[in-house]
Each structure stands twice: as structure tokens, then as C-alpha cells.
């Protein structure tokens, strides 16, 4: 059975729970003023730089790519999980050892491909830690 049918397109938390890597990162979703926001709690295993300390750049990338992907599924009602083609991450600030949040946006939806972006922040949504843009193939 297809993941999206099983998890339910309208329930991002069911989708996140059904994806092993997202469950391992303890990702969860909430809807705030109509916007879909992903939350990732801090865990010591996420550290990339123990001196600062800071989250691993790959953790930041994982949260951002997931936010863009879940937003794409949520908005388009995609029947299969969209496949990433290319992604770019700008690291704007050091990601501290605290909880992180991300929101995805569709920049443009075509027939075959979606251009998406996402932003990640920690305590202050006005101070983004990293931004993401990428393309996903539909179908």
C-alpha cells in the first residue's frame, strides 16, 4: 500500500510517524494560523560541533528538506512521495542545541515539478538559522 494512502494526505503527523528517519528525528507537525510548522526537539545525538555546541548541518538540512516535502504533499495532495531533484541550503546562523522549527513554501507548482523553499528557526522566527530551496518531481 502506498505510504500517502496509508498515512493520510491530510495528516502530516501520520506521514512523519510512518517515515522511519523522520520518526528517528522525533519530527512532529502542527498547524498555526493556517501554516504547517514542523518541530524537532533537541537531542544530544544531533550535535555536529561539540565546542559551540551546534547541531550538525545535516540535521538542519534534514529538517528543511522534510518541511519542504511535507508542505508539497499537504498542498498538492500528491499521490506518491515527491522525489528531490536538487536542493540548496544557506546556513545563516549557528544552529544551537535547542528545539528547532521549520516551515515550507511552494514557490511554483508545475505539472511535473514543484519549486519549493523552506526556512528554519529556533527561539525567534525573525532570525532564521538556515534557508532551503529545491525542486521535487511529482508522480
Amino acid at each position, binding site marked *: 500500500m502506498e505510504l500517502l494512502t496509508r498515512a493520510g494526505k491530510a495528516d502530516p503527523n501520520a506521514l512523519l510517524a510512518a517515515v*522511519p*528517519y523522520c520518526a528517528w528525528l522525533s519530527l512532529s507537525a502542527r498547524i498555526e494560523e493556517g501554516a504547517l510548522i514542523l518541530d524537532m526537539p533537541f537531542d544530544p545525538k544531533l550535535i555536529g560541533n561539540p565546542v559551540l555546541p551546534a547541531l550538525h548541518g545535516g*540535521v538542519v538540512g*534534514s529538517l528543511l528538506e522534510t518541511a519542504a516535502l511535507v508542505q508539497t504533499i499537504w498542498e498538492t495532495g500528491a499521490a506518491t512521495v515527491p522525489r528531490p531533484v536538487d536542493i540548496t541550503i544557506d546556513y545563516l546562523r549557528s544552529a544551537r542545541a535547542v528545539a528547532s522549527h521549520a516551515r515550507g513554501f511552494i514557490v511554483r507548482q508545475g505539472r511535473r515539478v514543484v519549486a519549493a523553499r523552506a526556512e528554519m528557526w529556533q527561539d525567534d522566527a525573525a532570525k532564521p538559522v538556515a534557508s532551503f530551496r529545491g525542486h521535487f518531481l511529482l508522480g
Partner: protein
Amino acid sequence: MGNTAFLQALGGTLESFADGHGRIRLPFQPFLVGNPDTGVIHGGVLTALLDQACGMAVGSALRAPAMIATLDLRIDYMKPAQPETDLIIESECLKIAHEVAFTRGYAFQTTREDPVAIATATFMLTHFDTPPQMERR
């Protein structure tokens, strides 16, 4: 930059890092899967491995230790990773400038000429001592 808690949590091992070139191996594990219907690992896992391999390639090319922070990372996903198969990441530092370093990374399962993903990453360097690094490569 040495091994990280996150790479260890993913189960990755550092195979070699010297003179601006590096190699990481990641055995397949079920918790890395991003699409349970296909068994393909999550793109974020590749992001983490490529980021780390590129950063460590920079570290291995530096003449004096410096803090290395990712500035920008682009990944092209060339084809899906085969499920239940190890991933190998190779990286190279192309150039170390005064404050910035430029790298490439390759993720593959058979040969580097048949990549799963290719990364281009740039890093900011923060030197611990004031004299500037000598240029290399």
C-alpha cells in the same frame, strides 16, 4: 573537524581523511529510510554525510586548525539510492582561500562514476591564531 555525534548516531564510519580528500562509509540501516514504500534512504541522510565529508576534507587540507562552518551546500540527486546497500561518500577540497574553502562531494554505492548524489559545498574558516593560512590547491 573530527567525527561528530550525529555521524556516529547515523552509524557512519570515517575511512580516510588526508590532504584534502576523504571517505565515509554508511552501512544501510532501517531507521535511515525516508520512503517506506521503496526503502530509499531519506535525502537528509545524504545531506548530513556530504556536509560532513566535505567539511572534513577541508579540515584535512588545513595547515593549522580552524573552525569550519558550512556556508552553502547544494546537492544534486542523480538517482535513488538502492535499499539495503551501503553508501560511500568521497569528498575533495578544491581550494582554500583566506576565509572560505570550496569542496565537492560524491555519494555512490558502486563507483564514483555512477553517483547517487553530488554536492558542492562552501565553508567559512575561523582561524584560531591570527596569521592567515597558506593557500593550498
